[in-house]
């Protein structure tokens, strides 16, 4: 598969590399917040994105949680979608055709209930046209079995990484949970287990209550907190992990503007993912690509890569 790439001669050069994968620019869309990309096709030029990461896929189809699944919070939202998805087989047969037609890398976010399930899903993605990478979600807080345990346990996280790496024919990105005492421990464990890059953060575990009904605001009681509210936590963790590992780090968490994206790059992120902001401003991901381009021009950067980890801390 060939992507439309920025030529070396095009300045500023916005290309970044995550493992063996080269992106035309550092802006991706976060899993679960961009559907299967097609939903956004008549709102923006999808081809301008660095990459698209699709909604989490499991081995078997899942109906997801009963409503209410989302609730707004101060500068953020809680979700407990419960990984509603069509399962890997139907994903490959129904959704990949359109995605493969896009001239940008498509990364498939996967989630299993066991190490073996992760391996099986990854296996089913081998050789599938259009799959440019796999993002291993070991951090989804909404699924009772599995999800959390893998993300908060360095040994399990490493085991999942190894299993997926063992079969995958594309770069493997492992997505970390922020609900841990020391995120660098898990980061180092997945790096040692062979991850090509690390993305973080997934949502913080939170809860909402409806005072009027005296009931939880989400049917699932707890859910994942995302949006601008969590940006400071995400920025801190990206900074810590970028200083702890030598594989590329992808920053996620509350990014809603070009400035936010650039801050994550200064903290050490090679690229970023836009999540909740896609709901607020459907065109935001493309706008951030444009914004980064403008910034690079204004700052006379030859390559946006010169920003990565450029935070001055003396």
């Amino acid at each position: 598969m060939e992507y439309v790439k920025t030529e070396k001669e095009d300045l500023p050069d916005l290309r970044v590399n995550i493992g063996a994968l080269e992106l035309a620019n550092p802006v991706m869309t976060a899993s679960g917040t961009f559907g299967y990309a097609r939903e956004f096709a008549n709102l923006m030029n999808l081809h301008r994105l660095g990459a698209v990461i699709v909604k989490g896929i499991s081995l078997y189809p899942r109906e997801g949680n009963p409503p209410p699944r989302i609730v707004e919070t101060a500068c953020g939202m809680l979700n407990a979608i419960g990984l509603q998805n069509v399962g890997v087989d139907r994903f490959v047969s129904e959704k990949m055709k359109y995605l493969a037609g896009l001239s940008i890398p498509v990364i498939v976010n996967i989630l299993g209930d066991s190490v073996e399930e992760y391996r099986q899903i990854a296996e089913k993605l081998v050789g599938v046209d259009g799959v440019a990478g796999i993002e291993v979600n070991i951090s989804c807080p909404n699924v009772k079995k599995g999800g959390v345990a893998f993300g908060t346990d360095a040994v399990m996280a490493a085991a999942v990484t190894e299993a997926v790496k063992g079969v995958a024919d594309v770069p493997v990105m492992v997505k970390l949970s922020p609900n841990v005492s020391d995120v660098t421990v898990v980061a180092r464990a997945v790096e040692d287990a062979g991850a090509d890059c690390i993305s973080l953060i997934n949502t913080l575990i939170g809860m909402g209550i409806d005072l009027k009904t005296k009931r939880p605001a989400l049917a699932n009681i707890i859910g994942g907190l995302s949006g601008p509210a969590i940006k400071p936590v995400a920025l801190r963790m990206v900074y810590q992990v970028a200083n702890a590992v030598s594989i590329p780090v992808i920053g996620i968490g509350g990014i809603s503007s070009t400035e936010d994206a650039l801050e994550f790059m200064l903290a050490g992120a090679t690229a970023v993912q836009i999540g909740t902001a896609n709901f607020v401003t459907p065109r935001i991901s493309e706008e951030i690509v444009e914004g980064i381009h403008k910034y690079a021009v204004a700052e006379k950067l030859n390559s946006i890569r010169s920003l990565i980890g450029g935070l001055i801390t003396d």
Partner: protein
Amino acid sequence: MPQYQEKAIITRVEQFSVKNFRLTLDSPEIASCAKPGQFVMIRTGVGNDPLLRRPFSIHQTSSNGAIQIYFKAVGRGTDILAHVKKGEALSVFGPLGQGFKVREDSPAVLVGGGLGIAPMLFLAKAICRLKNVCSKGLVILGGREKNELAPLLDDFHEIGITLYTATDDGSLGHHGNVVDVLHSIDLPANCTIYSCGPEPMLAGIADLARQNGVVCQVSVESVMACGMGACLGCSKPRKDGSYAHVCLNGPVFNAEELKWNT
């Protein structure tokens, strides 16, 4: 299905009661392709709080590129909207969702309760372009009290469709709710009910439709983050146990498809 993210200038603000407002927005792209029953997502604030857009039915469109929403201030977002002024701009995203499917050759019975009136004006106008559907058709509007309905009646009268009203306090039309009115009248033969309003009202209407063997389309609500199928947050249980998504598969559904809590 085109969708637009527009900066729409507010050209008119009408306050109908303490809490009920109608806004006219200059939104030519959305106006040009919207269909009755579709909705828009509107940003209510400037900062990150409230963060998410709020969904509103399209109340009516005009050929000069305007759309209207009719809303009630019930919380943080709508309170902010209740304070906007003519000339200010709002970020509007739409048109979204599946609107009403107008069935030709079937007399239309429109039932709007509370803020469920909002999409009915747009629908009534569209329906009355089809002679059969309109001449034997009728509209029933219900509210808590007179002020919620009265300012809208002229717009419906203009269309020339038979109009019934009901208020909880009896201050206008029938003293009671729209389901009572539906029970009290003879439904046109082979009619289709198009309705929007609070869930208990819709459940009642769905029930009545089933008993009368007529088709019933309902516009339902749900909390929404994206309004366009990206978040999967707006799930609604179907009769078959699976989940529909209000923003994508709805907001208008065939009443038979959904699970009703009764």
